């Protein structure tokens, strides 16, 4: 008989994983709020507003990293355009925030300032409904989802693979960036959206709101991890990994890769959108440079640093890189790019499995069964589930790429 879904959802993660999540949740939902709101500034354990929104921001990045890992680590599809989906989510929610400013803008008009300044008399059609939170939340998910779906449908159907896919995703986000830079596009051009005032009427700068946003980001991350974990351990996940390893075989045993890739791709984009939506109110600005190809590459870098093909790795990677950035831009203003640059090089050269890989190596050294430790279990279990040792992946990438030559289109191209 079938095991009930909820049970399998629970089984998808080893006990250690659940415990780790529980601890994290406790810290994020109780610890930080208390430390920020209740404790006086003088108290050693007081968490500064600065730290809260910094950590909140990083949580959003972690979600993006997980989304990226699902599509790259598990489906072997490297997207250099995830920044676009992140930004789209951000803009979708930003529209709502702009409307919430109401008449408090510097022109005191109903319209957002930048529209007044462009002499626009009423909102363009695509801003319709942007004053409703529900609609905004819908857009946050639907917009990136739709873009990803349409793009993915064509790309995967034409069996665009490997680097070709990566590059056109880059082209996609680059084009979008230029589009959003235009003032006529109606999203504030280079200045983007900023100077937000409130959400649902509550002051956006109030400590309460700050903590709420932080808690929400944490919740989103937890949800992503659970969902991701379930996906990669389900049969769906195994098919996905199988596509990554030997797409032609997958087809010959009757799975249609198009649908699998498309599903994961769209889902990943939607998660990015959600992350973006939580990111914007916490950093207080969204502008087209979020869509610059460089940003998207960085997302991939986080995943690689943490350990591609393991959810934990994605989270760690995003955390490490961004914390490092925040720390070094303060302590080594002139030299931090060196630090980050070398970090990436060292990681790709010596830690092909990223930090998690290193961790596992260290554990493995001490022959003592690595599995008693929670996160190691998570890591090891994961790797067993998908055997995601990036060192081996490229072989399979080449494998996958090979079958491109066999598509009718490619044949035409060869003629």
């Amino acid at each position, binding site marked *: 008989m079938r095991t009930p879904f909820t049970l399998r959802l629970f089984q998808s993660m080893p006990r250690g994983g659940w415990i780790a999540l529980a601890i994290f949740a406790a810290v994020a939902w109780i610890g930080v709020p208390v430390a920020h709101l209740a404790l006086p500034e003088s108290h050693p354990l007081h968490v500064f507003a600065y730290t809260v929104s910094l950590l909140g921001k990083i949580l959003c990045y972690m979600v993006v990293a997980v989304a990226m890992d699902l599509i790259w680590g598990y489906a072997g599809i490297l997207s250099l355009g995830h920044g676009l989906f992140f930004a789209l989510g951000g803009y979708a929610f930003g529209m709502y925030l702009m409307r919430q400013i109401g008449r408090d803008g510097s022109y005191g008009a109903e319209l957002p300032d930048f529209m007044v300044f462009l002499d626009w008399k009423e909102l363009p059609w695509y801003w319709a409904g942007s004053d409703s939170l529900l609609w905004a939340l819908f857009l946050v998910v639907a917009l990136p989802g739709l873009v990803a779906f349409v793009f993915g449908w064509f790309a995967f159907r034409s069996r665009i693979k490997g680097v070709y896919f990566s590059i056109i995703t880059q082209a996609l986000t680059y084009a979008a960036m230029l589009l959003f830079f235009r003032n006529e596009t109606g999203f504030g051009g280079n200045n983007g959206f900023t100077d937000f005032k409130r959400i649902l009427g509550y002051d956006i700068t109030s400590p309460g709101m700050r903590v709420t946003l932080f808690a929400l980001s944490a919740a989103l991350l937890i949800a992503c991890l659970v969902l991701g974990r379930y996906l990669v351990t389900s049969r769906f996940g*195994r098919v996905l990994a199988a596509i990554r390893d030997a797409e032609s*075989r997958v087809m010959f045993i009757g799975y249609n890769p198009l649908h699998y890739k498309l599903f994961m791709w769209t889902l990943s984009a939607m998660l990015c959108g959600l992350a973006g939506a939580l990111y914007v109110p916490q950093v207080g600005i969204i502008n087209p440079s979020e869509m610059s190809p460089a940003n998207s590459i960085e997302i991939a870098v986080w995943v690689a640093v943490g350990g591609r093909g393991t959810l934990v790795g994605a989270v760690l990677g995003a955390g490490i890189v961004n914390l490092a950035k925040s720390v070094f831009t303060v302590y080594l203003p002139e030299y931090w790019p060196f630090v980050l640059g070398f970090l990436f090089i060292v990681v790709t050269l010596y830690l092909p499995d990223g930090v998690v890989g290193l961790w596992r190596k260290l554990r493995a050294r001490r022959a003592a069964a690595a599995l008693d430790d929670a996160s190691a279990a998570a890591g090891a279990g994961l790797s067993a589930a998908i055997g995601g040792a990036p060192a081996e992946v490229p072989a399979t990438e080449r494998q996958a790429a090979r079958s491109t030559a066999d598509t*009718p289109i490619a044949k035409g191209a060869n003629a």
Partner: protein
Amino acid sequence: MIPTLEIERERAHLDAERENQREHWDGSAADGRVYRPGELDLSHKVILYLDDITVSFDGFRALNKLSLTIDAGELRCIIGPNGAGKTTMMDVITGKTRPDSGTAFFGQTIDLTRLTEPEIAHAGIGRKFQKPTIFEHHSAFENLELAMKADKRVRRTLFASLLDDERDRVAEVLRQIRLDQAADRPAGLLSHGQKQWLEIGMLLMQEPRLLLLDEPVAGMTDDETERTAELFTSLAGKHSLVVVEHDMAFVEALGGKVTVLCEGSVLAEGDLATVQADPRVIEVYLGR
């Protein structure tokens, strides 16, 4: 650059493919014929018709007006010198390559030239590659589980969980291919011969009506080869098999009808003895 004609054809293929993708799951192919995965019409006791098939790459004719029929339940061996078009033929049957002209029918009703690989697999054709292709990062068990005949749509696999009888089926096949000891080992770590077997096992899990086997015993030890022969003969009857082989001993062991391919078309057909007696065959093949 490429002649416009080529582009036309390419576009035609694309369209056909697009059609099918849309129609894939509701059971009716673009040509209006109704089929459901696994259900095919064997009213004439013939499972595969290849008629006048031509395929050429960059002017080189891999298949040249190839015509061939396989009866239901038959075990057919295909031999021929390198470059005779054996592999290309399999590509055509499995939808990997589209013929420039000619028709390929699975049973009476299913037009293979208009289906995509997954659809053909669903229709009931399984294929084993020359070089064993399995999922190296998955365990042998998982390899079989994935291959198992089941609803292979996304929304099913999302919530699928392994039923007991399914588990038994996998176990059974594992025994059949003698991998029950290695069930949980990542397939990448198996020996070449074992990989061959695993791939065959995956075919069995698909429960196809027609198995295409490209040099199944390459790299196997003699007794592995022997066992493979036994397995195939035991399969013949309820399945139809097309085996491409160079290993004459193996072909002999299989018995059954033999087709000799040469330069993309059938040179001779009959049981091994007659074929080997055929002077043309000796000329092009055994002669050397």
